[in-house]
């Protein structure tokens, strides 16, 4: 607001009458803005504590907020900023991090959850305000801005998604803030390198970092800003009054503000994340041994264990691929048709007693007294699975997924198997006779009989393999992380333990590792067979919502679904926009003389509308190419852009009423149109508000329901 006032005073004209006019407009602007702010906050904060139980994904993000308060390490596919803010909000408002967030529907009881919800709702309340300011800036029309704001304020979907502990309101806050700063920055183009110019530039950078720090969807707004910047630089390059030095300055300023600064903030977010979460927790197993040694409470933290691998030890073996998993076996056989019907051997990301293996000599003399012998490079060993007493085994059957590799199984009973159970230990870069250092040595296991090497392919097994990762024996002996393993836990009571303060990884290594794991995790979220899949084309037509809370008649139900009137109006206006732009640009290309008013309208449609259309496309189209599981709420950022476009388009459509009628009547038509619009939005909100603020009683298809007659599509589930 501050800079707007400044801009307004800058433009203060000489004539007094003009000044009064400006002042009046400014006052009315402030009144309208206060109205938007008031309505926005009141709709979002109303019934914020209802329902008093865990709704939908609160079970994840609330839990992760708690982890920050407890400083417990966890793993999530999204970057940490959103959850950190949730945790911070909870911490400030007195939530102590003790609520377990086990499943949706759990009652909060005495736990202080309103702070976290309130924080999300406050950020969500900024969306209509930002949209109002963006549209005002792009179209210079209060009507357009008000249309946009009213659409967003009274959209049940936007209300519902803002009212719970979710990442989406935070993400959308940063996206909209970035777009607003960008638009304001564009407005400052005639006064480069002044204080407001720098301020908006820096704000773009900060918000971009924030958006990317919450979810990777933030990349789309980065692309939007990037394209805008490229266009802007192109324009500057064509301005022959600027010297090349000036252009270089412009270029460098943008590099600093839009690349270096966001990068720095983004990295800082991760630094804080790693510093805060210093206790061992449920996410440990996803990370490498080196990473885990940082975590208090992890068995590798200040670990002490026998330094060299010995016969008779119990060990866990971890693959060196990033997110490679532990060598694992369990009481389940490979199904028929998948190699030999022997016990499965997989790689598993979580710590589990089924990851434990015993190291034996090839001949079966185990129990010796005294200090056990150490394993050396080139030794032949046998690995026995501790829980099932089967040996690690391989043979000339093809592996389940990687058909060119051999299958690895668990074979034999009580450690008695055959010659296919023998593996040769090889320390990478070692020579014959070298000892195997726990944690530090990279080890390869060569199968004696077939000459292949133990390998983790990284492919997820189907349901019969519990969606764990495939382990194979690869005939290609190239040294890759997939075929290298390290010994992580090492238990041998007959050997002295030595403290291992090794392996402190570098910060950049941690950063890279956690990103690779996040990206893997994201693409690993495949749709399940039994679940109904949301498809991107469902979203703009509001085909199906999401159940936030409650299923049947007795429960308190909240259903995330956009106000259908608003959403369908958005969709229709999108088509209308395309037609209007087509007509306008053909008219311009054909050289028809349009009046100054029409020229201005065409300019707003093409410049402002084009920017918003680009934003919508960038936030929507990429979902068509994504293989991961998709949900309805992924459309909301795109919906914001669509709504802003609706504001601009409808406003210009109504203002073009004079194409149909002569002046006094056309003004009336315009007013009538605006009133009808407002009435439609308000009435539809009145009809559908129970979707957000909670419904009880019979479902909509039964008589006597509060929502009777409103189930306009069969696919809606309320």
């Amino acid at each position: 607001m501050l800079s707007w006032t400044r801009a307004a005073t800058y433009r203060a004209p000489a004539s007094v009458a003009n000044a009064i006019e400006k002042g009046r407009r400014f006052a009315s602007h402030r009144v309208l803005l206060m109205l938007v702010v008031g309505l926005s906050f009141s709709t979002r904060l109303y019934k914020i504590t209802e329902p008093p139980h865990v709704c939908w994904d609160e079970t994840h993000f609330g839990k992760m907020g708690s982890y920050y308060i407890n400083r417990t390490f966890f793993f999530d596919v999204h970057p940490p900023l959103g959850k950190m803010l949730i945790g911070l909000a909870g911490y400030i408002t007195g939530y102590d991090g003790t609520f377990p967030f086990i499943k949706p529907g759990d009652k909060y009881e005495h736990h202080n959850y309103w702070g976290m919800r309130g924080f999300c709702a406050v950020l969500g309340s900024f969306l209509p305000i930002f949209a109002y300011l963006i549209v005002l800036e792009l179209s210079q029309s209060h009507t357009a801005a008000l249309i946009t704001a009213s659409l967003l304020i009274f959209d049940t979907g936007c209300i519902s998604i803002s009212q719970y502990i979710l990442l989406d309101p935070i993400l959308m806050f940063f996206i909209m803030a970035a777009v607003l700063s960008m638009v304001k920055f564009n407005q400052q183009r005639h006064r480069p390198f002044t204080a407001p110019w720098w301020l908006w530039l820096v704000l773009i950078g900060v918000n971009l970092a924030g958006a990317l720090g919450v979810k990777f969807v933030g990349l789309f707004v980065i692309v939007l800003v990037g394209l805008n910047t490229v266009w802007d630089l192109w324009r500057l390059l064509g301005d022959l009054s600027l010297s090349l030095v000036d252009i270089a300055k412009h270029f460098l300023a943008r590099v600093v503000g839009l690349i270096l600064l966001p990068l720095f903030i983004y990295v800082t977010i991760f630094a804080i994340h790693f510093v805060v979460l210093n206790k061992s927790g449920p996410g440990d197993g996803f990370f490498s041994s080196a990473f885990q040694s940082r975590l208090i409470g992890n068995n590798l933290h200040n670990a002490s264990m026998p330094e060299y691998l010995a016969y008779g030890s119990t060990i866990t073996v971890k693959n060196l691929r990033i997110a490679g998993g532990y060598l694992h076996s369990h009481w389940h056989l490979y199904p028929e048709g998948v190699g030999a019907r022997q016990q499965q051997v997989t790689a598993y990301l979580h710590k589990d007693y089924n990851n434990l293996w015993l190291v034996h000599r090839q001949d079966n003399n185990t129990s010796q007294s005294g200090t056990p012998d150490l394993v050396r490079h080139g030794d032949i060993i046998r690995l026995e699975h501790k829980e099932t007493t089967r040996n690690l085994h391989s043979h000339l059957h093809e592996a389940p997924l990687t058909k060119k590799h051999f299958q690895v199984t668990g074979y034999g009973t009580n450690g008695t198997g055959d010659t296919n159970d023998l593996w040769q230990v090889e320390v990478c870069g070692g020579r014959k006779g070298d000892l195997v250092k726990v944690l530090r040595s990279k080890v390869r296991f060569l199968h004696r009989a077939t000459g292949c090497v133990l390998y983790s392919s990284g492919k997820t097994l189907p349901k019969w393999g519990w969606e764990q990762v495939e382990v194979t024996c690869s005939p290609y002996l190239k040294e890759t992380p997939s075929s290298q393993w390290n010994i992580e836990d090492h238990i041998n009571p007959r050997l002295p333990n030595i403290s291992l303060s090794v392996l402190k990884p570098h910060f950049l290594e941690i950063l890279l590792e956690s990103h690779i794991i996040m990206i893997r995790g994201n693409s690993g979220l495949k749709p399940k067979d039994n679940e109904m899949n949301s498809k991107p084309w469902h979203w703009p037509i509001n085909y199906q919502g999401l159940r936030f809370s409650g299923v049947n008649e007795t429960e308190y139900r909240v259903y995330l679904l956009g106000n259908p009137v608003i959403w369908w109006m958005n969709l229709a206006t999108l088509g209308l926009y395309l037609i209007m732009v087509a007509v306008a640009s053909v008219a311009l290309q054909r050289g028809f003389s349009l009046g100054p008013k029409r020229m201005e309208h065409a300019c707003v449609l093409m410049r402002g509308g084009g920017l918003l259309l680009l934003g919508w496309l960038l936030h929507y189209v990429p979902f068509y190419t994504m293989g991961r599981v998709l949900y309805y709420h992924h459309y909301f950022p795109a919906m914001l852009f669509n709504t802003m476009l609706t504001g601009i388009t409808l406003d210009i459509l109504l203002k073009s009423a004079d194409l149909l009628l002569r002046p006094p009547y056309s003004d009336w038509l315009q007013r009538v149109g605006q009133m009808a619009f407002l009435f439609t939005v308000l009435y539809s909100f009145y009809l559908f508000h129970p979707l957000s603020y909670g419904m009880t009683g019979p479902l909509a298809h039964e008589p006597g329901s509060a929502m009777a007659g409103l189930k306009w599509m069969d696919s809606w589930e309320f």
Partner: protein
Amino acid sequence: MAGDVETRGCVSGIRVAESRISRLEMLQRPLVVTAQVDLVLVLVSVLALWTRLSHLSYPNAVVFDEVYYGQFVSLYMKRVFFIDDSGPPLGHMILALGAYLGGFDGNFVWNRIGAEYPSSVSVWSLRLLPALCGALCVPLVYLLTLELRFSHLSALGAALLLLLENSLIVQSRFMLLESVLIFFVLLAFFSYLRFHNTPDSSWFRYSWLLLCGASCAAAVGVKYMGVFSYLLLLGVASLHTWNLIGDQTVSVCVQCVCRFVCLLVVPVLLYVFWFYIHLSLLNRSGPHDQLMSSAFQASLQGGLSRITQGQPLEVAYGSQVTLRSSASQPIPCWLHSHKANYPIRYENGRGSSHQQQVTCYPFKDVNNWWIVKDPGSQELVVGSPPRPVRHGDVIQLVHGMTSRFLNSHDVAAPMSPHAQEVSGYINFNVSMAAQNLWRVDISNREAESEVWKTILSEVRLVHVNTSAVLKLSGVSLPDWGFRQLEVVAEKLFKGHSSSLGWTVEEHRYGISQEQKEREAELHSPTHIDVDRKISFWAKFLELQWKMLTVKQEDSEHKYSSSPLEWITMETNIAYWLHSSTNAQIHLIGNPVSWGVANLSLLAYQLLAAVYLLRRRRGFKDLPDGVWCQFVRLGCVCVGGWVVNFVPFLLMEKTLFLYHYLPALCYLYLLSPALLEHAHTHLLSNVTHRRALCVCVAAMLSSVFLSYRTFCPLTYGSPELSANQLQGLRWRDTWDILYRRR
């Protein structure tokens, strides 16, 4: 061959005007034919025909993907229906045309690469059409370069690069589709540019535009990949149209409509027309019938139509029916029951109802028969007149052979515990009540009281007690269920899913009151004779949809490669190896031309970037006309390379080196044109120009030399020794085969 009228100094020496007659003489003579023949064009055409067509029937054995396309050619000859997800039917039909002209009768088993053709198969005619297309690409490139407004020398250069490209020769000489695709794409661009360059006045030029639309349709009809080039061409055309709209001196409406019709309407209609021919050729049932809907199958001769011909149309109370699941995933199957119960306890300890199993069975079987029964009466025969079942009616389904009622209840299904079990119920067990009422819900109904029709209606069976819907879960049961597919009733009724739909396939009116008679009746085949047709459009849409959605198992192939490897020609493909000697054919490009192509791509981008930045700063290095020519070259050639290459980076299917060939052709168009540009506009110094000419000459001769070097691998003869083969292995990653002797 009528050549271009314009003459340029540099090529006049080799161009001959056959007769140059003065105007005065012309008046005196009544009839005169003036023809100009571009001998260069004739020469490259002859050379192209020679390189592509000589010894076409060698090797007399199945080479690489001929094994794949061959089976479809055989099916065309036998007029048996098939479905192939690799591309639209035009390409297959062109191959089949060649076979038809050669008198191939379809009696050859295409089962392995390297199998010898019998003498009855005319190999020459099988391979003729692709080879012709491949050969015609060379003169087309020549003409296309001229239409891009470059000189005859550039055109000759482009034609030579294409002529001496080993990979294109290999790909043209066998029964494969890439050369056909490239031919149509080049033809489309050539005819469009010819249209664009012809002066406005003549209406004749619209025939070029029509040709362009037709070749676009053909390109897309040969392979889906043609779509990329088609879109590029549309982009270029719409840009030109946009400029035309800006030209206020002409009226544009008619022109715009003409372009719209020729470039959008005609291609779409032609594309559908390919399918029309395809479907009217293939009218017999065959191996892929099962993937199609019952209605589609019934329209084919033999197969299902033999069974369903003459069935009563309307399902009535007392009808005997088989119910086919609408889902063809994982395999098509029929609702089935048999004399075996669900086990009392499953492996994981959960209990079942221990009633008779109801499954979905992928084979025709007498146990697939069900009888539609009116809950209000005991009759199992059709009354007279028959009482049809309508949408919304409540029925019971009685299993024909065991008299169990189709039943569902609140017991978890065996493999999908979130859904209800479906069982065959008979009233022996007093502990569980019967819940065997089902409501018929016709999902493709047109009226509310529509009658349930054989084959045409897709119904959902909604369980009355629980409002769950009968559904094929697609999971196969363990040994106790004989590995048949599980059928469940699922309560969460969400949207549309084909696994919820069921279609009556075989149908007759039951007449036997007694169980014994009825069993005999069920064993007897169905009868009578009436023809039932679905429209062409319905068949087209269904076939097209199935072709786009049917996914074959993604198999890793020994010679598959990733797109980034194509640019550097990291891999080759072994097409054929002689059964006893070292003679072999490989898809290997000409490495020198490949390098030239990559260099010119890079050079164009650099040059374009420099020009653009400098123009933006007000330095006009090129006059406007030249700049336009340069941009047009980039749009067509670099754009063509981009649209034919980048999409592969995003694809997940198995890819081969030959997918790169269309993109490569665009680069061969680019290289000589770029050299000409450099010669005329970048180099001002005479010595520099001479140096460039020398370089070009050296380059061309090395292109020719490397073509000669790889010829044995291109034509499969002469046979080379192991040492010579080793010498041809220019890259370590190439896989060349040696036979140890």
